């Protein structure tokens, strides 16, 4: 493909952005290769967004389509919003990886294949009759191959790694080759390997040698004699770190507890894709946080509710099936009016569904999925780093209004990463909490259900406080005294008081801001993790001369005060969601607007062009 002979090397070709997908068997270390490439790109100063995608099985049968794991990273020298619709480069470690990922490769894109894995057995497992690398079926792509296994074996020969472990380093070969191709700094990778595996250990040496071999293979092989350069992005000045949604969420909870001056208590049960929040907080014991791995989902929220009663900032983390199990306790938290945060990292359902894939289909459950009249605040982050601020907001609402709060994240945010401009942690909003210490009723009596005039919240007297002994529970409470009451009028008043308290939060949250064309006839409304692709789709539509506006919601209950007025200004409303139109239904019901749904339930995020296409379609229809 290259006409000229070796050296001098061509100067790198400048690109403003590139999307690279590493794909291989789930045992091939593709998540690691992708995340290392991401970290070195972050250190280099690119803007970036990632999309790790892996099967539910830890080790599906080797070489099969079901076992393919991939990691996509979008790097750019400008402010990007998504992990990229299509891959410009696909690293395919075996035929199955090529087959399952080919449809996402841009026409003319580069396919870099590990030719050693394209043997008869693997081709058969992937369902290829002929070797696609040679049968001409990939003619619309640019195909390059490297004998990654053979070269990795040779590279690690003197490191002391033996037997089957030898080939484990082939992901580092691929990473080295791609790092060369995109002019990535190598030092961060070497440092990471030495820290992770121990400097001088055989495994560390093998990985470094394989990486070097890949890097040098690019450098010395004619076919690869072409490199790309993506300059650092012109991001706003500041200090950045690269962060995933679950990490940001965990840190946000820790920060919220500090701001409130309370101990953080996390009761949880492992469930994909929420588990890494528990793992992250469990390693932060030196912050004085308490984590409790419960015997089941119900106990996870139960211990947290107990800790809330006793005065901690209590959290439970889970995914959809776990929310179902916790819902009875959520209702008790609502009835006892105790602060509690439930984090639902949504995944594709119902039931076990696609446990490692993204969906936004728990919105209705978050809003309405409890017995009785049981409104509570619902918030959702828009990006991995936004999970930090959203966690703090959830804590603020829970503590200020004495209520359980649901935070709806999802699998895409959980594992996806982006650069985060670090806020001034000394300047985070403080969360004021006061535990009751004095009687608030007549004759020195404590009334647990006397409400704050502004917020409607009841006081929080924790066990151990002298003179404020009281009982709470699931039975309906008499106003003020909190005594058990079966009085019908009291039940109605208490039901209304609980609802009014939550509705009143609308006065305490920012109004929605409209992005984009003031001339627009169409408003796009989105929530949660779809922010990046929807905003990119709206931006592209506007750039192509289609005026369209966009509102993205963080607060899903209550909605911002001005949402109804904003909706009323547009003839058409489009609601893209990774579900069958749940927010669209709520908007139609609540505001009587002709909201139209753009639905996707493929266990994958929106692509920006899917949103753009729908926008243009809707604009073409005369209203």
């Amino acid at each position: 493909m290259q006409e000229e002979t070796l050296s001098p090397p061509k100067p790198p070709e400048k690109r403003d952005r590139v999307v690279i997908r590493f794909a291989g068997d789930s045992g091939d270390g593709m998540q690691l290769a992708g995340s290392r490439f991401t970290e070195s790109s972050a250190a280099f100063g690119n803007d970036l967004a990632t999309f790790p995608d892996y099967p539910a099985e830890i080790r599906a049968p080797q070489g099969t389509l079901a076992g393919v794991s991939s990691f996509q990273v979008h790097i750019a020298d400008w402010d990007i919003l998504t992990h990229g619709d299509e891959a410009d480069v696909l690293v395919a470690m075996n035929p199955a990886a090529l087959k399952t990922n080919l449809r996402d490769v841009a026409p003319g894109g580069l396919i870099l294949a590990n030719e050693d894995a394209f043997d008869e057995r693997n081709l058969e497992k992937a369902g290829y009759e002929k070797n696609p690398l040679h049968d001409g079926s990939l003619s619309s792509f640019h195909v390059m191959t490297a004998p990654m296994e053979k070269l990795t074996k040779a590279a690690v020969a003197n490191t002391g790694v033996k037997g089957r472990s030898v080939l484990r380093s082939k992901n580092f070969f691929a990473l080295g080759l791609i790092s060369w191709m995109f002019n990535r700094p190598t030092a961060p990778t070497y440092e990471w390997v030495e820290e992770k595996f121990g400097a001088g250990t055989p495994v560390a040496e093998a990985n470094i040698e394989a990486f070097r071999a890949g890097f040098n293979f690019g450098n010395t092989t004619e076919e690869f004699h072409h490199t790309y350069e993506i300059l650092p992005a012109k991001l706003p000045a500041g200090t950045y770190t690269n962060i995933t949604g679950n990490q940001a969420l965990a840190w946000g909870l820790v920060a919220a507890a500090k701001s409130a001056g309370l101990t953080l208590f996390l009761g949880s049960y492992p469930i994909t894709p929420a588990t890494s929040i528990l793992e992250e907080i469990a390693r932060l014991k030196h912050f004085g946080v308490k984590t409790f791995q419960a015997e089941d989902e119900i106990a996870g929220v139960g211990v947290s509710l107990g800790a809330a009663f006793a005065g901690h900032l209590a959290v439970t983390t889970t995914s959809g099936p776990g929310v179902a199990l916790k819902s009875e306790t959520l209702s008790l938290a609502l009835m006892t009016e105790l602060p509690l945060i439930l984090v639902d990292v949504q995944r594709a359902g119902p039931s076990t569904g696609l446990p490692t894939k993204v969906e936004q289909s728990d919105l209705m459950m978050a809003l309405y999925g409890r017995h009785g009249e049981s409104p509570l605040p619902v918030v959702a982050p828009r990006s991995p780093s936004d999970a930090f601020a959203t966690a703090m907001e959830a804590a603020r609402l829970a503590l200020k209004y004495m209520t359980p709060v649901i935070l709806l994240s999802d699998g895409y945010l959980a594992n996806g990463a982006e650069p985060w401009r670090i806020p001034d942690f000394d300047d985070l909003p403080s969360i004021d909490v006061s535990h009751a210490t004095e009687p608030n009723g007549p004759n020195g009596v404590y009334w647990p259900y006397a409400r704050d005039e502004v917020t409607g919240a009841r006081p929080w007297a924790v066990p151990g406080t002298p003179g404020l002994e009281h009982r709470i529970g699931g039975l309906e409470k008499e106003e003020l005294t909190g005594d058990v009451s079966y009085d019908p009028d009291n039940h109605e008043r208490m039901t209304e008081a609980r609802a009014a308290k939550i509705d009143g939060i609308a006065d305490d949250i920012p109004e929605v801001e409209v992005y984009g064309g003031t001339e627009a006839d169409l408003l796009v409304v989105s929530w949660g993790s779809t922010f990046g692709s929807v905003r990119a789709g709206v931006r592209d539509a506007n750039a192509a001369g289609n005026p369209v506006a966009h509102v993205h919601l963080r607060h899903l209950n209550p909605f911002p005060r001005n949402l109804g007025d904003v909706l009323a200004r547009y003839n058409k409303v489009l609601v893209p969601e990774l579900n069958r139109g749940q927010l669209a239904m709520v908007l139609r019901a609540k505001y009587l607007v002709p909201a139209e749904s753009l639905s996707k339930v493929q266990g994958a995020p929106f692509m920006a062009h899917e949103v753009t296409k729908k926008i243009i379609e809707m604009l073409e229809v005369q209203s």
Partner: protein
Amino acid sequence: MTTDTRYKRSDFQSGQEVKWCPGCGDYTILASVQNFLASLDVDREKHVFISGIGCSSRFPYYMNTYGMHSIHGRAPAIATGVALANPELTVWVITGDGDALSIGGNHLIHALRRNVNLKILLFNNQIYGLTKGQYSPTSEAGKRTKTSPLGSLDHPFNPVSLALGAEATFVARTIDMDREHTTRMLKAAYEHHGTAFIEIYQNCNVFNDKAFQILTGRGERDANRIYLEERQPIIFGANDEMGVVVGIDGAQIVRIDDVGLDAIQIHNPARPEPGVAFALSRLAHGPSGPTPIGIFRQVQRATYGDLMDAQIADAMAKNKANSISDLVQQHGTWTVE
């Protein structure tokens, strides 16, 4: 019990009208608990009562302490959260046979194995009372109730055996009507650092009256109550003529005259292994005959809360980098000018 304390029973009465059926065994237990707490020199606000759902679970409403009437079966989990949040508190769990052993079985066994500092009082009346008379997980097999008109097919749990199998560090049994014994058990449980589990045989005079007749009836109780007393031979009967021996086939009831007093088992609840305690628990299933009453097992093991607090204190002593900024710095950063 000392009488020279700052509290009276009435200090522990909440003022809410007690609404159990007249004649219910729960009244007796409530009085025993209130009297016991009044006898302690412990601040009233340090006691927390957490219950689930069922007749017994209304208990917290009647106590002038902190309390929560929670969800069916979930009290051990919620109480665990309270105990871990504040080790200064004495956390009591009030539960029943349906609440603890049916819907809440999972939380009960895990609280026991973790040795959370909880005092669990299981009111066992061998029936569902609040839903008006269905068989429970401790009802005898073949029991005819509204949901088992031809007889229950369920093999019942023996709560003491279950607790011992779940690694409990303190397991006892008492009877509602025996207030003196109940108080002794409450005191021992209170003083035990860890999960203390007491099964209280409690008569439901409406839906399962006289279930414990052989242990409470004037003419029968002496022949059937086997009091377990520490360091004492396990003997019983109107004239102390009966005893218990423990061998490879478990515990057996014998006539002392037949085996000699030296052969009778000396009770030692502090045995490290629970085997003998388990054998004793198998003597009565029901109760259908002579039944051990008292402390089956009492051993010391670190509580979950102590271990948790120690782990956190250790981590905080070893790593002072506990600001969010530290966290971010360790994660790796870069600067854009």
